[in-house]
C-alpha cells in the first residue's frame, strides 16, 4: 500500500521545489544566445519532460518485472499508472518541443513538424505505450492481463533508451549531441545548469506525486470493484 504520510511530505516538498524552479527559470539571467534568445529557458521545462518519461518507464518496468515474479495486483496497478503518467509527460514533451521549434527554428516557414529524428523516434515510443494500453484493454482475465502486459511493458522499457537517446544521436538533428552538433555539456552555461539539474529532480518528483496519487485511487478502486484498470 501507499505510505500516505510520506506521500504528503514529498508532495509538499515537490510543490515548493517546483515553485522555486519556475522563479529561477524566469529570473536568472545568462549570456544571450543567438536565435535561441529567451527560448533557451525551455531547457528547464522541455528537457526534464523526457528525463521524467525515462524515469517513469523504469519505474513501470520495475513493477512489471515484479508482477512476473509475484503476480501481485498492486504491482500491476503501479506498472500501469507509471506508464500512464510517463506517457503523459512524453506527450507534454513532444507538444512543448513542437511549440519551441516552430517559433525558434521554423520561423517564416509555417512548419510545425519537420521529421527531426528525435521527434520520429519519440512518436514511435509513444505508440508503443499506446499499444500497451490497448493490449491491456483487450485482455479480460486479470491474471493473464497482468502477466502478458508486463512482458510487453518490459519490451517498451528496453526500447525507450534506444529510441530516445541512442538512435537520434547518430543522425542529423536540431538536438544537441546529434551528428555534427556539440553535446549538451560543451555549450551550456553554468548558470543554466544550476537550474536545469534541480528542474529534472523537480519534475521527476512531480511524476512521483501524480503517479502515487493515481495508485492510491486505482488501489481503492481495485479493493471495491476488483478491477485494476484505470
Amino acid at each position: 500500500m501507499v505510505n500516505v504520510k510520506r506521500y504528503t511530505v514529498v508532495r509538499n516538498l515537490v510543490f515548493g521545489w517546483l515553485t522555486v524552479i519556475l522563479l529561477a527559470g524566469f529570473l536568472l539571467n545568462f549570456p544571450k544566445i543567438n536565435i535561441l534568445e529567451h527560448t533557451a529557458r525551455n531547457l528547464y521545462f522541455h528537457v526534464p519532460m523526457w528525463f521524467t518519461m525515462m524515469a517513469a518507464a523504469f519505474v513501470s518496468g520495475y513493477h512489471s518485472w515484479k508482477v512476473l515474479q509475484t503476480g501481485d495486483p498492486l504491482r500491476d496497478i503501479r506498472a500501469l499508472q507509471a506508464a500512464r503518467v510517463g506517457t503523459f509527460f512524453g506527450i507534454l514533451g513532444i507538444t512543448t518541443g513542437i511549440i519551441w521549434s516552430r517559433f525558434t527554428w521554423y520561423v517564416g516557414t509555417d512548419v510545425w513538424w519537420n521529421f527531426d529524428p528525435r521527434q520520429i523516434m519519440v512518436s514511435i515510443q509513444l505508440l508503443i505505450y499506446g499499444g500497451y494500453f490497448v493490449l491491456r484493454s483487450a485482455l479480460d482475465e486479470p491474471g493473464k492481463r497482468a502477466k502478458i502486459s508486463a512482458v510487453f511493458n518490459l519490451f517498451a522499457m528496453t526500447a525507450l533508451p534506444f529510441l530516445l537517446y541512442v538512435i537520434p544521436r547518430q543522425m542529423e538533428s536540431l538536438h544537441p549531441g546529434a551528428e555534427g552538433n556539440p553535446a549538451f555539456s560543451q555549450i551550456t552555461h553554468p548558470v543554466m545548469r544550476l537550474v536545469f539539474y534541480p528542474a529534472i529532480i523537480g519534475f521527476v518528483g512531480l511524476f512521483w506525486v501524480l503517479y502515487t496519487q493515481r495508485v492510491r485511487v486505482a488501489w481503492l478502486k481495485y479493493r471495491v470493484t476488483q478491477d485494476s484498470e484505470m
Partner: protein
Amino acid sequence: MTKSIVALFQNASQVAVTDSAATGTVSTAYDSLWTGADIPTQAPSALEQVMLSDEKIFVVLAVVLIIWIGVILLILRTDRHLTRVERSVAENIPDADDGL
C-alpha cells in the same frame, strides 16, 4: 530556397551578435537550421510577431502553460476516477459513515 533561409538566419544572428558582443555570447550550434529543411520562407505572421517579441519570452510562457494545463487535466481525470470509486463505495456499503 535553402539559401534564403540561411540568409535569414545569418541576418538574425548578425543583429544578435552586435548586442551580445558586450555580454559575451555562449557559442552554440543550436542556432543552425536543420539542414534537411527545404521550405520557402514567408513574412512573419501575426502569431509569429507576438511569439518573437521581447526576445521570444512568450515561447517560454507557452511551453510552461502547456505543462501547467496538462497537469491540471491529469489531476481532473484522476479526480473523476476518485468520484466514481466513491460512488461505488457508497453503493456497496450504503450504511457506512466514512466521515466525508
